[in-house]
């Protein structure tokens, strides 16, 4: 067993996480966390749907931003996927998707302000990068045979439309629909930085302890996502997409001079702006690296590694909940509900809730990341086990779990986990905005102090770190010959 490369890799990661735990700040500082948690669940059970007249508007805006952002992202991503084989395009896409939606929103807020464009671009830009990558992977998988049979002289575009697109259409559509769900989550959390989506009201209600209001918002959000197959129909999709831009809200007018100022002044490192030249730049950069970037990177990496392993453990615990090989329909239904809630709640909102209840430390972040990501992978793995046909005399109970199922799904489990490694890191960085000392904390501090030059350098560092982890994750998956489909 220990000689198997997958097991060895897993053990190395568990060891790294255990060492990270020694350095991590894990604590519950609230004096009565269980009472608060109880109050919160009481709030969810007694939702108040009529708290704020803004609630319905917020839901509408959440959907509108998701539609416009994802539609724009998918069109741009599709165009990029056509030229994805060129290295500069690949690097560009890796870069724009390495920066989280919230960071993009924080950047655009500085010069577009509260204009709808801020929210739309915050979703569309990183999504373009992701769409470009996944679309190009899907298109590469298309059956090349019909293309070869076309009459010579057939135009490139006609050939593409007749042979590649129809073959990939179902996958492209499925993936885009899946991304729309992700887009709803992204759109919701944009409210936390001030855009008029659900997060805006959720944050207000939560911080005031209005758990019944917050519960109502969460419930509406789950219903919105769970009923997507009912209201997102191919036939009415164009109506949504054409209509959505009109429901983004008014915001405030863009002052274009601000855009120029942002790029020519704000993000220029202050020593250069003040004419101190390169001599001033080095101490500025050193100070930034030592006091902000390094601690930020350290905490981000530690938290990521712990959260990754926690996600793995939770997945292994959670997938039997929805597997046909265990339990009856009641258990499976409640398992489904649990996993739907875990994966539909954006990790940012989960972390925010847990931070309010347990007080600040890395613990709420670890639990939030594990719940959300474990929910996603657990769902996929559980579904995969349903495709496994066991021999009639297969063992039952824990033996079935450990001898029949886990060995069969372990490779794809690892594949998903390593695929999400980079995503977990991107999320970890962003959770810093909530007060955990990861890179996002320092980015947020720089922005709060109106030091966009510092914020930009820190965002760039975050992006590079993500690209590095992404490459490492891909390297490990290739080494172990693990294949997976994309998740978000």
């Amino acid at each position, binding site marked *: 067993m220990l000689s198997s490369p997958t097991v060895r890799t897993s053990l190395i990661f568990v060891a790294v996480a255990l060492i990270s735990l020694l350095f991590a700040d894990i604590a519950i500082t609230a004096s009565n966390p269980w009472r608060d948690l109880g109050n919160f669940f009481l709030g969810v059970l007694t939702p108040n749907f009529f708290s704020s007249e803004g609630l319905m508007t917020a839901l509408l805006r959440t959907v509108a931003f998701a539609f416009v952002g994802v539609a724009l992202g998918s069109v741009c991503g599709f165009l990029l996927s056509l030229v994805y084989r060129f290295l500069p395009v690949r690097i560009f896409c890796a870069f724009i998707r390495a920066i989280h939606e919230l960071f993009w929103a924080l950047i655009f807020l500085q010069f577009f302000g509260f204009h709808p464009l801020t929210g739309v671009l915050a979703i569309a830009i990183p999504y373009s990068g992701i769409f470009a990558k996944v679309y190009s992977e899907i298109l590469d998988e298309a059956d090349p*045979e*019909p293309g070869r049979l076309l*009459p*010579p*002289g057939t*135009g490139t575009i*006609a050939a593409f439309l*007749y042979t590649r697109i*129809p073959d990939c259409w*179902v996958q492209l559509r499925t993936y885009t629909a899946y991304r729309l769900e992700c887009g709803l989550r992204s759109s919701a959390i944009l409210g936390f930085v001030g855009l008029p989506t659900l997060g805006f009201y959720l944050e207000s209600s939560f911080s005031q302890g209005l758990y019944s209001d917050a519960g109502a918002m969460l419930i509406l959000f789950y219903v919105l996502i769970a009923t997507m197959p009912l209201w997102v129909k191919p036939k009415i999709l164009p109506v949504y997409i054409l209509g959505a831009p009109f429901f983004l809200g008014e915001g405030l007018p863009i002052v274009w001079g601000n855009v120029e100022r942002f790029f020519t002044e704000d993000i220029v490192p202050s020593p250069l702006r003040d004419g101190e030249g390169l001599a001033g730049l080095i101490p500025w950069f050193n100070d930034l690296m030592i006091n902000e970037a390094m601690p930020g990177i350290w905490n981000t990496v530690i938290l990521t590694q712990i959260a990754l392993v926690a996600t793995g453990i939770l997945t292994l615990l959670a997938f039997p909940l929805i597997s046909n090989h265990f339990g009856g329909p009641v258990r499976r239904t409640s398992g489904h509900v649990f996993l739907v809630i875990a994966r539909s709640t954006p990790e940012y909102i989960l972390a925010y809730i847990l931070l309010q209840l347990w007080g600040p430390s890395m613990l709420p972040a670890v639990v939030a990341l594990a719940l959300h990501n474990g929910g996603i992978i657990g769902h996929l793995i559980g579904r995969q086990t349903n495709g496994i046909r066991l021999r009639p005399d297969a063992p039952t109970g824990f033996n079935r779990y450990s001898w029949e199922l886990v060995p069969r799904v372990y490779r794809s489990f690892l594949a998903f986990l390593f695929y999400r490694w980079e995503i977990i890191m991107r999320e970890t960085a962003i959770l810093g905005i909530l007060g955990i000392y990861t890179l996002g904390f320092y980015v947020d501090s720089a922005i709060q102090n109106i030091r966009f030059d510092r914020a930009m350098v820190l965002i760039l560092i975050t992006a590079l770190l993500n690209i590095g982890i992404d490459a490492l994750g891909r390297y490990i998956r290739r080494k172990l010959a693990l294949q997976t489909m994309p998740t978000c």
Partner: protein
Amino acid sequence: MSGFDLSGLTASFGGERVIGPLSLTVKQGEQVALVGKSGAGKSTLIRLIHERVNRESSLVPQDLGLVNALPVFHNVFMGQLDKHTTWYNTLTLIRPFSRNRDEVRELLRALGMAEKLWLPTASLSGGQRQRVAIARALYRNAPVLLADEPISALDGPMAHLVMELLKERFQTSVIALHDVEMALKYCSRIVGIQDGQVALDESSKRLTATDITSLY
């Protein structure tokens, strides 16, 4: 040109030569049947010929090469993508022009499946799919037909109907067939392939089924 004269045809798989070197001359108006046991290199030869005479040929490959997600109409129409502008093709993808619809329907009627015009290809049976690929080749209407076992999934009467149609529409053709009777009936010349070489090359009038069976 509608006949062709090819020499030095060779193909190797994994370092081992499977075809040739051989030469093949096909004159306009000749209908050549390639016969031989499976693995003799008939498919490879068809592919080699296609590579050389691409522009002039309508091809029916053994694995058909259909776009499963598209309806029958579009799979057939694909045979003439080179004859129209990109705009025309794109519009056709969204809403076919009635002229093309009629042409394709006519072809399918001849193949006994006019009612399948708008069904997705993925939902068809093996024989129907084969006829779609044949319809595509007919619609392409090139001077030379290259077909690899075009009737392998068709039942008796339908196989005859298709062969009749191919004979009527294409003056020049090279068709790989394992059914010797069919080859003798519908082709003017029989080329037998054995171990990647031409082992037999005669007018079908001068051959009987037993002459050919020795190749198997």
